């Protein structure tokens, strides 16, 4: 098993290309092979030139071992444009039945799910849509572990991949700065880094949340806003990915 290059963004930043190349050489599933083979990301590449894709999953809960994916939404984008016409959205049938609580949460109903395919049936298309693009998520501890577990269960091999986490960026900008620490020290509550609240800081409009595609779009817009506000388009990719 490979040692995964997690940690701070600056630690092990150059390990991702090796890992991805290695996986591309080893995986047996043809769709996964194409997915890993399509990565062509140099850690020094300017962020303004990186092909991106915002990804969001709706799940029945927060634990990838007990809960399942019910919908997947993604939108390809770049620093300049969000290619909404190329959006993809799938509802999938989880192997375990839905709880009432999760239904109220993401508003996907039983009948909608009853007619939906198993995740396995859309995986090839999903990999295709993600291929060659760097995934952007808001809170990285959902999408990656859930996909890893679900893919491993269906294809016998997991998938790990680099992501940019807009929530983590927001935390760095609003919680770890000297100013934020000072405000916390004088007893002010820390800035909320939830998707909706983060967007408001950049003048982005409120959207109906908890729909995988709407949240993916919202995440893409947030990352565009973060880039426009805090970063030079020449900033190297390795400053962003995890």
């Amino acid at each position: 098993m490979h040692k995964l290059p997690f940690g701070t963004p600056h630690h092990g930043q150059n390990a991702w290309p090796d890992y991805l190349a290695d996986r591309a050489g080893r995986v047996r599933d043809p769709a996964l092979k194409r997915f890993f083979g399509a990565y062509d990301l140099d850690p020094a590449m300017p962020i303004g030139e990186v092909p991106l894709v915002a990804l969001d999953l709706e799940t029945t809960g927060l634990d990838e071992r007990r809960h399942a994916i019910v919908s997947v939404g993604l939108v390809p984008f770049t620093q300049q444009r969000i290619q909404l016409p190329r959006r993809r959205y799938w509802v999938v049938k989880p192997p375990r039945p839905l709880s009432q609580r999760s239904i109220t949460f993401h508003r996907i109903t039983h009948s909608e799910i009853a007619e939906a395919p198993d995740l396995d049936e859309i995986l090839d298309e999903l990999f295709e849509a993600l291929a060659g693009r760097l995934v952007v998520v808001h809170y990285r501890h959902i999408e990656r572990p859930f996909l890893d577990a679900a893919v491993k269960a269906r294809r016998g091999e997991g998938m790990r991949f680099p992501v940019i986490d807009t929530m983590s960026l927001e935390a760095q900008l609003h919680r770890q700065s000297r100013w934020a620490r000072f405000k916390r020290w004088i007893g002010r509550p820390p800035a909320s880094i939830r998707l909706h609240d983060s967007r408001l800081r950049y003048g982005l409009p409120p959207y109906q949340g908890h729909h995988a595609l709407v949240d993916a779009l919202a995440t893409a817009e947030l990352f565009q806003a973060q880039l426009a506000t805090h970063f030079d388009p020449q900033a190297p990719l390795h400053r962003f990915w995890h």
Partner: protein
Amino acid sequence: MDVELLDIRQHMVGNPPFDTLSDDLLDEVAAAVEVGYFRAGTMICEDGQPTKDLYYIRSGAVEVYRRNGELFNRFGEGDIFGYFDLLRNQRVRFPVKAIEDTLVYFIPDELFRRLCDEDEQFADFVEVGRPRLETTVDHQHHDNTMMTTRVRKLISRLPVMIEADATIQTAAATMCDENVSSVLVLSAEEEASSRTFVLGDGKQWRTLGILTDQDLRTRVLAAGLDAAMPVAEVVTRELIAIQSDESVHEAMLCMLRNNIHHLPVLHRRRPVGVLHLSDIIRYETNSSLYLVGNIYSQSSLKGLERLEADVRRSFVGLIEDGANSQMVGSALSTIGRSFTRRLIELAEEELGPPPVPYCFMVMGSMARNEQAIVTDQDNALVLDDSFDHERHDAYFLALAQRISDGLDACGYTYCKGDIMATNPRWRQPLRVWKQYFHDWIADPNPERLLHSSIFFDLDHVYGEEDFVEELQDLVADQASQSPRFLAAMARNALNRTPPLGFFRTFVMEKDGKQNNSINLKRRGTAPLVDLIRVHALACGSRAQNSFDRLDDIAKTQLLVGRSSERIRYALEFISMVRIRHQVIDIQEEREPDNNIEPENVSDTERHNLKDAFQVLSNAQKFLKFRYPLPS
């Protein structure tokens, strides 16, 4: 429609030109947009760069510049921009900068062109050939209110009703008492049925029929019937009625079809009124005619003063009936002239006949037949050349004083510039007036003309019509021959500039300053009227009304292309916005004025006003170029 795109669609559907798109096209637009974020201070479109998209502002705000860096316009949430560049050569000629953090939806060129092809209103909105202003104005005029106004609006009182066993004489007496020309005849019913209704007494009733004046004549008197017989014997049993939510148009057709003059109006089965043919006629021929009749029947100033409320009522009525600005202007001017004439008649009764012939002349909006509900008086006396100051002036001063005070009492306030017949300068024999006009035209001085340009709209109201006609001829003949005069008038017409545009809750001025309200007369209609007057004088037109003047101007080569048409639409639109806001003021019991607050302006109105002010601004530029000051 994908549910995830609803939010985008929802937002666009609230803003022109998307608000009128078909659902299918709207779905396509929402599905096709791309998205981009621009931080405040960054350029969205750079001069000369290729452009392939129409831009829609989802949130934030932008500034659009001319190539020389001058601010052209500001746009906010829900506005579109970039279509000029898209329609021309697909290169940016109007650079755009985000002035707030801005989220933009890009609509691809291909789809933009399809929207223009497939949706006429969309094309109207963006294409230069037929600006949205004209479309709006045309749409307003095509609304026929008779088709849409419901009958119930015309009902002024509950129907008079009597029971079927009452005598014919009782019926006639009731009609006299109530001063009506018909009664409805009801019978009490034991049980509820499909024909019964409940009245305030809780009982079941059925409408047997209607009895009219004419029935009393033909069925009772001519037939020699006994007036003690029950009305049930003579009532018209076949009840032709109309539901209260039908249109006025339908009511009229119903009366014509059945050849009847009285039409009961029902709410379900319960009678709520009786419509008389005259109600419809009164509705059709706007009620200002009745008001005018009323003015002439007053025998005192007090009586005239009491009609002030009626003026406002008929003004509101005109707008509710869908009148355009020309109709409103002409109705209000007719009313104003009627007040003036009646005041003169009353004054002459009191002072005796005039010692020499005279003409009472009006200037400004009344002369143009463009009077508004908020107006002051501008008038003058043109006296016969045999006028002798020593012997005659006391009479005319007294006359002028009575008229001026009377007009003020009736709601036409004194002229702030003292342009009234009470001022000895404006109470002169015809030859002096001719000299005045001759001097103004031959030796114009912008300063002087600023105060007296009001005299170049002049019309007769009472007395010797010839006097004013001679002055009008003089102006028409001499003005067009005098480039210096036209140049001076043109300078005056440039004194008041239109506001550059509406932005959020304020009006943005050319120098970037902001105003929280805008005087539509001072910044819109007045400068338009001024510039129309210059062109009209230049082409020797004798017309006084701005729209008539535009007709005369259009017959010449003075304005290129469709300029005169655009000016017409701009004047009509700004006038109507002004009028409508005054109607709202009156309805909400505020004193009407010429100021509107941008926050009370709808999106469509805002866009159209922007266009109208742009037309004015362009027309002023042309005016400056066309009538240069001779060196």
